[in-house]
């Protein structure tokens, strides 16, 4: 589906992100640039061009343009961000700043930089990974959830703005993913929760490969008029 398309992925070396990268390669994309501050162990016979860069740092991000070497991009996946639980009474402006910087501001900065430098081709597709938390309230996740809601709202605004260049912007509101279970903050959240939040996801936890499938579908030309939406992939969590 991605034949010949140049794709840019931002994110850690989490299993979800690796799945996305593998799936993009298997779809015979043109070039895949994987931007991460962590070392990414992904041997795909040289099909992945790994760019080690702390993209949360704005000055480092400026270097991206030269690292891409004038290569124009047909698809961007923003899979960066952070999680974290924090009851309101222990909240602080610094925590809010940090969360929003990772989950929202950096995404804006990337798209600003890429559009300003005209590095995005007409007809390109931008996909941001959001969370079902954006639309469902959970105790102690107000800052995380609101950062994802901000991301979802930003997607709509950008879609309206970039429509004249035929650039599409969408987000995926994902539910619990199998690999989430190992995350520290989710472990502690589960340990203290009175009812098990996972059980609300009636179809069970999501396989990272399914997220990768949806990302690739959104990056492709299969549905060229799909833009400004937040696609719910939540295993029935919100039912």
């Amino acid at each position: 589906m991605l034949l010949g398309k140049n794709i840019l992925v931002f994110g850690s070396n989490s299993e979800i992100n690796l799945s996305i990268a593998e799936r993009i390669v298997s779809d015979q994309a043109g070039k895949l640039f994987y931007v991460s501050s962590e070392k990414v162990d992904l041997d795909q016979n040289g099909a992945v061009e790994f760019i080690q860069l702390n993209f949360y740092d704005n000055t480092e991000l400026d270097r991206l343009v030269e690292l891409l070497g004038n290569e124009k991009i047909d698809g961007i996946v923003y899979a960066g961000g952070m999680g974290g639980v924090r009851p309101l009474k222990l909240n602080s402006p610094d925590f809010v700043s940090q969360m929003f910087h990772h989950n929202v501001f950096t995404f804006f900065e990337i798209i600003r930089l890429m559009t300003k430098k005209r590095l995005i081709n007409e007809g390109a597709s931008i996909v941001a990974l959001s969370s079902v938390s954006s639309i469902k309230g959970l105790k102690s996740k107000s800052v995380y959830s609101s950062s994802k809601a901000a991301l979802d709202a930003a997607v709509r605004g950008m879609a309206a703005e970039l429509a004249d260049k035929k650039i599409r912007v969408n987000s995926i509101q994902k539910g619990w993913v199998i690999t989430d279970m190992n995350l520290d903050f989710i472990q502690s959240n589960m340990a203290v929760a009175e009812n098990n939040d996972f059980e609300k996801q009636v179809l069970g936890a999501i396989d990272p490969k399914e997220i990768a499938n949806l990302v690739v579908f959104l990056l492709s030309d299969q549905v060229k008029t799909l833009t400004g939406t937040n696609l719910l992939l939540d295993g029935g969590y919100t039912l």
Partner: protein
Amino acid sequence: MTEAIPYDRGFIQRKKILITGASKGIGFALAKELDSKGTSLLLHASSEEGYERLWTHFEGRGHAFWQADFFKPHEIEASLQSVLDDFGPLDGFVNCVGVRLRRPVNLLNVSIIQDTFNANFTSYLEVIRLITKKKRFQSGLSILSISSISAHSGAAGVSIYAATKGALESATRCLAKELYKKEIRINIIVCGQVNTEAYQALMNSKEDKQDAVLERQYMGLLQPSNLVNACIFLLSESSCFINGTSFPADGGYLQ
């Protein structure tokens, strides 16, 4: 201006209510209405001029005043503590601070984004954290803020503004679940295009004087009094079972 809501008569006058961003727009209209009903108000303005305006308008009516720059959330705690010590526990809090940023994506930078979030979101959260501490509120405290149809619809040039409002709505849902045990409610009004001074100024600056929003907002331009009534309803016990909602006052825009 607005008609009194019959089932609320006499109720709101016994209450202590904090209004942030009270010096203009919806905040000012709400302050005037609650003042006329005899509510005890703590009126906030971000700027020096705003504070002056509140002072000129409401001096000698038994209200309290608070100035704090919402662009600087770190400074809120210090100034709000002492103001609350004098004012006493709150029955209501309405946040009307909202910086309307219009700027295309390629002209944004992180410091503009950060500033807008500080003013529209982070400071609000900080105020909520402080007023939901023990002895700072009465049971039944109702918290309210103002969102916008732009958080739902997507228009060019307002992606940051819309993102701050989306964040507010999501936080509202989470905090409702976090605070209900303290008998605190929190809701948010999703408002359509309102006829404020800022709106008039914007329309005067446009050449064609046309507002495309009103094609979808088929009931026409919202008047501040419409929103004031919605606020008073959500502040009052009449809405005691409404919690964590995004309450539309959109003149039909979203449906």
